[in-house]
């Protein structure tokens, strides 16, 4: 833990310098409705702590969690399917790639139209941008398993299923964690975009409402909160990764 702090020290100092520059610049500009200072943002966050933490944060986290779980299920299923069968891969891979060329912000209003202002339109936006990195990364992980290893197990009389669990799954595990580390921030972004475009609660929605009131600090407060949550979540995943992955990319 201590060495981790030491390793991040240059980044922290740089970040602190940037924030101080921002503080000084914003104070000089003196237009809080456009560019609030960091201090003003934290003050506003404290004033708004009631609705922020009890209503809007839980709403966004709900959408993020449901979206992330659905993306994981979908992404893993696609990756395993494409790895297991050439036919499935030829059928799905191009479609999966094409799905990413859809501009999310443009299609999200359609989702609102179709699924209403409830959580499912937001969940759909989240899944649309999150399942892709999971699918591709885990698929690459499954592919990284060496055929020689599979052949060795075959000479021991192993079935396809045994080969999957004893070789493919462990090979894909480090890739899986990389995928989650990418997917967590993206799912939060997805949820926020969805809420921004049409919702009744959530940090994205809240940020937008503050904008209509020309409350600069109020726009920033939920954004800072979202970033903090994403960083904590990625940190937790990294800890889990260190517990479960004993090796990474050893060539033998």
């Amino acid at each position: 833990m201590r060495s981790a702090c030491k390793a991040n020290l240059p980044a922290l100092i740089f970040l602190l310098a940037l924030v101080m520059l921002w503080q000084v610049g914003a104070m000089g500009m003196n237009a809080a409705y456009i560019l609030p200072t960091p201090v003003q943002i934290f003050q506003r966050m404290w004033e708004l702590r009631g609705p922020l933490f009890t209503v809007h944060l839980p709403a966004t986290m709900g959408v993020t969690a449901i979206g992330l779980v659905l993306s994981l299920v979908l992404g893993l299923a696609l990756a395993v399917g494409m790895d297991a069968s050439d036919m499935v891969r030829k059928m799905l891979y191009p479609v999966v790639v094409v799905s990413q060329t859809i501009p999310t912000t443009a299609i999200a209003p359609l989702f609102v139209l179709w699924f209403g202002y409830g959580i499912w339109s937001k969940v759909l936006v989240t899944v649309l941008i999150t399942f892709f990195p999971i699918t591709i990364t885990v698929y690459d992980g499954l592919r990284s398993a060496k055929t020689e290893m599979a052949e060795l197990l075959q000479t021991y009389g192993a079935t396809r299923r045994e080969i999957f669990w004893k070789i493919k799954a462990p090979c894909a595990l480090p890739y899986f964690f990389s995928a989650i580390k990418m997917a967590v921030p993206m799912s939060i972004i997805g949820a926020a975009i969805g809420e921004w475009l049409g919702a009744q609660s959530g940090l994205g929605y809240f940020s937008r409402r503050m904008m209509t009131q020309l409350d600069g600090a109020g726009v920033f407060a939920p954004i800072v909160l979202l970033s903090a949550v994403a960083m904590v979540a990625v940190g937790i995943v990294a800890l889990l990764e260190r517990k479960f992955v004993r090796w990474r990319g050893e060539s033998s």
Partner: protein
Amino acid sequence: MSALEFRSVSYQYPSEDFDIVDKLSFQVEPGSFHCILGVSGCGKSTIFRMTNGLLPPKGGEILVDGAPIQGRKRYCGYMPQKDLLFPWRTVGENVALPLEIAGGLSKGQRRKKVEAALADVGLEGCCDKLPGELSGGMRQRAAFARTMLTGSDLLLLDEPFSALDFLTRISMQEWLLDQWQRHKKTILFITHDVEEAVFLSSSVLVVESTPIRALTEVPVPAGFPRDRSCLKDPSLVELKEQLIALLRKQVSL
């Protein structure tokens, strides 16, 4: 009854327009140690990959202990050139793989067998280490212990020492002969190293040309147990030169 018999076996790779193994017949008696000697790319590994069932022969019949191999499992132990220890498993878990797949043993029973097998190859106390912590020679010995635990009497070793440095390699050769004499297995050993083939085999099976139509059996005039001093024997020196001359004809630069 032979430990392994090929009856006019052929094999053709889909990308080639000739049979790389062409109506090959040979047999190996139980308890013997033969090296299959040939230049790189001559198709000697293809013989192994058909024997262990990874490649289906185009024609002919392969018998192990007198019975055809079709539909059989675990009749031979195969050890490829790379040790292929899984880096995410401990050494003990790696060695336990054949037992896990064969099934029928509890975790405790497996652990006992694995520890015995590791002790047998001189790797006591390495059970819970990761493969990355072992040296090249130790990794090959762990891979050999894993091959032994397939429980088969026929072992197919495909250039297992070729990636090791010279000094480790000659120690491993002596070590392997010792293992063979103690466990009474039938060993087929692929190599392109003439000295290795002469030192290890009771007789060398030479691949004289590709496609492989026959293996020329060349007996080695030395008994067992042997050590490296026998390589200085004039008859063995002459044999080595003979084999080198035979193989050089096939090398084109």
